[in-house]
Every structure is written in structure tokens, then in C-alpha cells.
């Protein structure tokens, strides 16, 4: 769980190129979209691609995706749940 969360934070900063923040500055429960990290719907598309690339986990249903994308913690749980 901790490794997955750490990796997710690195993906957010390095691959989604969030400006002015370090991976360790992101809290586990901070909202990824809107008020929190401020990601938008284009970032969501990228995150779907990145999660598939790094973890082999495919997020097909965006309703499910929205829940998973609430925070680093919820996304880590989703990834661990769905990983082969």
C-alpha cells in the first residue's frame, strides 16, 4: 500500500507535470481534482492511461474512475484491488 501510494504520487508529479509540488508534499487524502491538486478532465484521461501503463489496471467505467480518483489513497486501493 505505501509503495503504491508513493509511486502514484511520483506519477502525478512527473507524468502529469503538476507544477510547484513535490511527491512527498501530496497528502494521501487530498482531493486530486478541483480544489485539491486541481487536476482537470484531461488529466483524468491521462491518469487512466498512466494507471494502465504502470499497474496494468484498466479503468473502463468513468463512474468507478471518479470514485477511484478521489485521492491518492482511494486510487491506491483501487489499483491494489484490481491488479492481477
Amino acid at each position, binding site marked *: 500500500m505505501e509503495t503504491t501510494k508513493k509511486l502514484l504520487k511520483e506519477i502525478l508529479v512527473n507524468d502529469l507535470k503538476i507544477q510547484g509540488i513535490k511527491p512527498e508534499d501530496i497528502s494521501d487524502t487530498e482531493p486530486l481534482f478541483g480544489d485539491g491538486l486541481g487536476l482537470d478532465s*484531461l488529466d483524468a*484521461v*491521462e491518469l487512466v492511461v498512466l494507471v494502465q501503463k504502470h499497474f496494468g489496471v484498466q479503468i473502463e467505467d468513468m463512474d468507478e474512475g471518479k470514485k477511484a480518483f478521489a485521492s491518492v489513497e482511494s486510487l491506491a486501493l483501487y489499483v491494489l484491488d484490481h491488479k492481477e
Partner: protein
Amino acid sequence: MDEERKIIFVSGASRGIGAAIALNLARAGYDIWLNYRSSTAAAESIQKKIEDLGRNCRLLPFDVADEAAATAVLEPLFDEVVPYGLVHNAGIARDNILPLMQRREWDDVLNVHLNSFFILGRLFSKMMLSKRQGRIISIASISGETGQAGQVNYSAAKAGLIGGSKALARELGKRNVLVNVVSPGLIETEMIEKLPLDKILPLIPLGRVGKVDEVAGVVRFLLSKDADYITGQVISVNGGMYM
């Protein structure tokens, strides 16, 4: 070419304007992913010409209106490389006046032009977003701008491409993915063979039909660095027939 070699996917590129675009882009230094549905011999002859120019050409035969087929071909390729450009050119005409038009004539035309834009646009834009670069060019038609009797299906499909491309340009702009439309008028291809040119030519200020390379050149420009600040535009190539 000022950078590393870029790949451009061209749909419907075995004949007509599509084939001219593929060749023109190969001459400009691009590698080509050449899509076609059934004209294998024609596609192979274009492939040979491209390879003679020293460029790569990958043949990708599938029906652009078939989402499962498009996905099955493209997704594994995207694991290796994402093309810089998508040129959506595939098209057919099934002309008939609307009161006599068969449902099938409507559906076929909408499928090949417009549903395929959804299918290809979705697959490519998803990958281009992450690259933070890319160009999507739709080949529309003067019929989509003015409407054309006998072509309610074709005009609707091409107008749909124009609207869809503008909307997509707004969606993808922030990620430096540019979307534009090239809208040809009457171009010397099989598609206009049966038209009464003696009646039509007087309506064209330049007094002649266009050549396929005059369309292809605009596509090449829109893919180039010179067009870095152009998105959401419809560039008409019609000899002044519609302004």
C-alpha cells in the same frame, strides 16, 4: 524535417486525395501509417512509392467505421509509438435526393465519415494528450459548408466533421494538440467523374477543378511548425467556389 521523424496516420489513403496526402507527406519526410479498407493493390502501390522515397509505410487495413477492428489494430501499435498526426480522410459518397434516399445510404455515409471520427478521434486523442503534442486534421468538403442537393447524407456528415473538429480543438488545445479541417471543393478524383463539369466550372472563380496535391499541400502545412498557432480552423481549398 527539422526534428526526429514523425509518423502520420492517414485514413482512406489507398486512392484519391488520401493517397496524394500520404505521398506528399512522405516526400516531406514523414513516415506513414496507411489505412484503407479494401483496395489492397492500390494501397500496396502507394506503399512502394513511399518506400522508394526512403520513408516507412505501414499498411493498416481496416474499416474505419468498425470500432472493434480499429481498436484491435491501433492499440497494440500505440504501445510502441504514438503517431504525431491523424489525418481523417476516409470517405464515400452515396448520392441520392433525400425523398428517395435509402436508410442504408444515409447510414453508410455517416458511418464512414463521422462515426469513424468518433472512433479514431477518441483512440488518437487519448494518446496524444499524454504526449502533449499532436495534430488532428479532418478532411471535410465544400458540401459540408454550403449544403449540396443530392448529398444530404454527405453534407450532414461533412458538416458534422467540421463541428466535431472545432469542439475537439477546444478540448485539446491546452495540451498542445491542434485540430483543424481542410475542406476541398471539386478535386480531380473518381468522386467527381460523373459530374457535369461544363455546368459547374463557371461557378469556380479559378475556372478549373483542383488537383489532389493542392489539398495535400495544405495538410502538410497544417502538420508543420509553421502552423503551431492554428487550431479549430476550416481551410477551404476550392478555387474560390465558396467564400
